[in-house]
């Protein structure tokens, strides 16, 4: 740890302008998080063009604050109207909504807010300790090790949430392929430009991200226009009682650990963390029967885990340049657009930058506790905004956002095409997050691969000379084969278990 850098970073954030922008991001984040269909990833992608001219520290801080608040925001509607505003809040609705039906919505919301903040702050402490350590290790990495690490990051797409590991990997590979469009850095040769000068510099992140997250979702939402949302009942949010804390402290602590660990794993997002947090809360609970019927532990578990996942996901993003989730992939793209190369050099050269982001996330966590407790009812009422106005607004914002970055209609076309392809691909199980991760990591993987091949004189067998490469290759193989072999191993264990439990013969 570097106390001077921590103080310098915190100082960068302590200004009225920063606080106002973080508060604005928190308000937008909780609102977006509460609105079903609108995700924090989409919100961060839409925020990107607004931040282009801004100070990079403020820009990334706003995105990080939006990410934290958006993850929490989903729990409000999950509890009040059984409609998770965002995927990480799905597990919260299992027990949150039954509690709301029992008239305990205020208690459930209070626990969700406190567990979320605890998870968020815990993961930030881990972030402040782990990021410099990881970065220090990564500083010794040569191109071949960076290639192996990036390959591992991409291979983790196989384990990302979704029904098909194979489709995630294909989507990720297409993302990498799209990143090869434009001038080849080693030779200066045009690739896949089809004679279009606008493609010489490659396909820009901004319109692709907006298209794939916002436009494809708009088309998706047009299919469910007739869904009627429940009206919010009057609710007074209250802090958890001492008894609630006594029941949940172990669950919260456990979920903090789970969420942070899952968040740190490349590509694993907060949704996986929340579901694991819920399952573990149920497994270790003394009141398993209450789960699904309105257990307070069933809220504390997933909420602490999903918010711990946000800080955890920032660790590999900032320390290694490998995104920890779909949203952090967008934040990574923003860092690149602001002229930074995320990774160990960023940590070494400008540590105060990273600590400023850490401070912003910490402030955001405290802010959404206040905002969430005070304004849960108002945020829940946002779901009553007619979709007939909400989604056209998203389209207008998307179009203007895609256009504003380079002020060219070409980017608007890229956004539209990305949206249409994204919609069709999603119907067939190819998710947007793996594609975006591939797109963001594509440049890094090709660059490190090219450098290594130059060093190795095209002898790829020399990749196996490095123990670090071998470790990452083994981990990559495990994460790709895991979804295939894992269920078979689990089934084998299940077959063995009855024999162990069977009564012994006299």
């Amino acid at each position, binding site marked *: 740890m570097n106390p001077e850098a921590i103080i310098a970073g915190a100082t960068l954030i302590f200004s009225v302008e920063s606080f106002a922008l973080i508060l604005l991001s928190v308000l937008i984040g909780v609102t977006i998080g509460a609105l079903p269909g609108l995700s924090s990833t989409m919100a961060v992608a839409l925020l990107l063009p*607004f931040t282009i*001219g801004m100070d990079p520290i403020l820009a990334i801080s706003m995105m990080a604050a939006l990410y934290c608040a958006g993850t929490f925001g989903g729990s409000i509607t999950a509890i009040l109207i059984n409609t998770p505003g965002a995927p990480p809040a799905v597990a919260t609705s299992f027990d949150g909504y039954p509690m709301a039906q029992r008239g305990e919505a205020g208690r459930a919301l209070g626990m969700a807010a406190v567990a979320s903040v605890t998870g968020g702050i815990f993961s930030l402490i881990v972030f402040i300790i782990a990021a410099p350590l990881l970065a220090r290790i990564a500083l010794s990495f040569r191109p071949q090790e960076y290639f192996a690490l990036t390959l591992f990051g991409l291979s983790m797409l196989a384990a990302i949430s979704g*029904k*098909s590991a*194979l*489709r995630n*990997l*294909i989507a990720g*590979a*297409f993302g*990498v*392929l799209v990143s*090869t469009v434009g001038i*080849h850095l*080693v*030779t200066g*040769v*045009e*690739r*896949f430009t089809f004679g279009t000068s606008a493609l010489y510099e490659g396909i820009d992140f901004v319109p692709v991200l907006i298209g794939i997250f916002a*436009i494809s979702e*708009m*088309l998706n939402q*047009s*299919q469910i*226009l007739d869904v009627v949302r429940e009206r919010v009942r009057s609710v007074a949010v209250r802090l958890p009682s001492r008894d609630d804390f006594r029941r949940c402290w172990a669950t919260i602590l456990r979920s903090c650990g789970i969420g942070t660990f899952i968040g740190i794993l490349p590509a694993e997002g907060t949704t996986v963390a929340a579901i694991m947090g819920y399952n573990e809360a149920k497994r270790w609970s003394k009141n398993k029967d209450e789960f699904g019927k309105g257990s307070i532990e069933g809220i504390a578990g997933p909420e602490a885990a999903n918010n711990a996942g946000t800080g955890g996901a920032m660790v590999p993003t900032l320390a290694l340049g490998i995104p920890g989730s779909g949203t952090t992939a967008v934040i990574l793209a923003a860092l690149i657009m602001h002229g930074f190369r995320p990774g160990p050099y960023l940590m070494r050269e400008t540590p105060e930058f990273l600590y400023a982001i850490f401070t912003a996330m910490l402030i955001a966590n405290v802010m959404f506790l206040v905002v969430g407790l005070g304004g849960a009812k108002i945020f829940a009422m946002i779901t009553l905004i*007619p*979709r*007939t*106005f909400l*989604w*056209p*607004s998203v*389209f*207008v*914002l998307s*179009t*203007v956002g895609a*256009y*504003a970055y380079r*002020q060219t*209609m070409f980017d*608007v*076309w890229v956004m*539209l095409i990305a*949206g*249409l392809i994204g*919609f069709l691909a*999603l*119907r*067939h*199980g190819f998710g947007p997050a793996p594609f975006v991760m591939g797109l963001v990591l594509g440049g890094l993987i*090709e660059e490190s*691969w*090219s450098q290594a*091949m*130059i060093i190795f004189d*095209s002898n790829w067998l020399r990749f196996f000379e490095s123990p670090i490469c071998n470790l990452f290759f083994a981990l990559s193989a495990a994460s790709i084969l895991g979804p*295939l072999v894992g*269920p078979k191993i689990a089934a084998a264990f299940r077959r063995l278990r009855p024999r162990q439990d069977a009564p012994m013969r006299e």
Partner: protein
Amino acid sequence: MPAPSVHMVDLAVTAVIVALCAFLFWDTTTFEKVPESLAQNVQPTMFPRLLLAVIVVMALFLPFEHVQKKMHGIDLDSARSDWVRPITYVTGLGLLGMVIATPWLGTFLAMVVACALFPVLWGERRYWLVAIYAVAFPLAITLLFVAGLEVNFEPGIAGHLFR
């Protein structure tokens, strides 16, 4: 009747992916040749071709994936079992139309048309509310981007008339 081992929809998806990869592979043959001394063993075609090969190999497993998934109770068809509703096609065409029309109408007018068109298309019948929204929202966005962020919108007809 036993389930067929080849999933026909996924077979079509595979065919599309393989055809796309074949086209892109052909495109790599049109890349400029670089002398070895300049390319330093890394020809511009190497990485994309490797990637295309990996995608094709993975895509070949797609038509058979459903068998394994079904064994674990996962339905790969749940998201695509329903037909795409006509409103989605209309919305898609509307989006396309708006992007085509923007250079002619100008960004502001295109926003006004989009804000008036899509709510009505999606079933909104409170026309007074649509009218207010169609004017107020594009105005707010224009103020934010043009005055606040100094973005130059496409002028279109309206812009040229005022000029």
